[in-house]
């Protein structure tokens, strides 16, 4: 694959499937805010009951994420930011796209470790993930780290969508790109808000019941 095709694939994967999954994830989590544990668990169950879930996860999430993430780190490394000399908002967003990409990478690795990898190791079950999140969100330090993670990821996704539209020749003229900027930055705020609200929801006591259960499980293991 030459430089052009590999970059086009990187760009495509950022939106399909990663961007779509990201939106889906924001909505499922928001279920926790809107309908509490039942709603959240129903959402998790709905996804886990999909046929071929194991294959779907690898093809639609892990492999695209690995490709986009690792190639993305390389793209970020190749940049030579010059924001001191050129303080234009587009140039800042160029820089933030790279910084938030790196933050998102670290954040996703950590987030996966605490959730999916623990499930894989058999330390928790899918049904207890709400409780795991409750444990994390009630610790102020971890809450702040999650906040940085989700806001970065939301910016990266929304601003990435803006540049995706340019990279594929969909928004060509300055007016189209300006309108697209307003739409994408609104999307950034909305998606970030969905995630932050669900983080706040996980702090609620109703998610703790699951935690009590979790602690018993843990004590059995240790």
């Amino acid at each position, binding site marked *: 694959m*030459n430089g052009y095709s590999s970059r086009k694939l990187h760009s495509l994967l950022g939106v399909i499937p990663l961007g779509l999954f990201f939106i889906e994830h924001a909505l499922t989590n928001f279920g926790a805010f809107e309908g509490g544990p039942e709603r959240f668990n129903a959402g998790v169950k709905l996804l886990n009951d999909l046929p071929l879930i194991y294959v779907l996860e690898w093809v639609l999430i892990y492999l695209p994420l690995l490709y986009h993430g690792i190639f993305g780190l390389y793209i970020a490394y190749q940049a*030579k930011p010059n924001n001191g000399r050129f303080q234009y908002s587009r140039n800042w967003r160029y820089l933030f796209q790279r910084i938030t990409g790196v933050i998102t990478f670290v954040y996703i690795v950590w987030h996966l470790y605490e959730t999916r990898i623990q499930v894989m190791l058999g330390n928790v079950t899918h049904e207890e993930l709400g409780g795991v999140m409750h444990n994390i969100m009630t610790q102020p330090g971890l809450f702040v780290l999650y906040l940085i993670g989700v806001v970065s990821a939301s910016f990266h996704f929304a601003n990435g969508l803006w*540049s995706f539209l*340019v*990279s*594929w*020749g*969909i928004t*060509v003229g300055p007016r189209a790109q300006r309108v697209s900027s307003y739409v994408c930055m609104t999307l950034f705020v909305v998606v970030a808000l969905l995630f932050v609200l669900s983080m706040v929801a996980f702090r609620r006591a109703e998610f703790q019941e699951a935690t009590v259960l979790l602690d018993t499980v843990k004590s059995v293991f240790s």
Partner: protein
Amino acid sequence: MAEQTASTKTVKFIITRQDSPDAAAYVEEFELPYRPGMNVISALMEIQRNPKNAKGEKVAPVCWESNCLEEVCGACSMVINGKPRQACAALIDKLEQPIRVQPMRTFPVVRDLIIDRSRMFNALKRVKAWIPIDGTYDLGPGPRMPEKKRQWAYELSKCMTCGVCLEACPNVNDKTDFIGPAAISQVRLFNAHPTGEMNADERLDALMDDGGIEGCGNSQNCVRSCPKGIPLTTSIAEINKQTTKHLFKKWLSV
């Protein structure tokens, strides 16, 4: 008569110099008598006439390149007070002092402010930024260009290969092989021409290889820096569109 007494006003310069392509860079300060209407090139000429630095030491005159002196040849591009631009169009009256002058380091420095812009001309060759009409017999007149199209295409034709857009681009550097905005905009120009259009696919293919259009990271500094006001980001997005279409056409036709 007050006007005739020599002015004591001076202009201060801090110039980044380099004696040879591999030598280390160093800065040297100069202080010149002010003259109304002077620009950075006329100041460099003044240093050439009387090559003394601010400490009064005699030094080798500062080297630079220039030709047209009216912002149409692109030879005199350098970084003045942090911004890449044409030295011949940089009026002293409009610059903050001391005036810092540096070579455009995105390109190999030959000496002092002289840079080697070969990569830009190679890029034009790579994308075939011309219209092939030579043959063994007279091909006759080509198709006409609609006036409306000619008007915007003319704007693109103003590019003087000055290199400012490459200097402004954070993705043109020694870690990438990105061709830069100027050549991409020239592909749009020649693909818009009714005769040039006949070779449009060749130019798109050239940009769909390593170091082609995919190197753009959308910082959009180029369009804000181009001294000719060329709509570079519109050109890049338009060529993104043309390459995308070309890509799908190629896939569907195998």
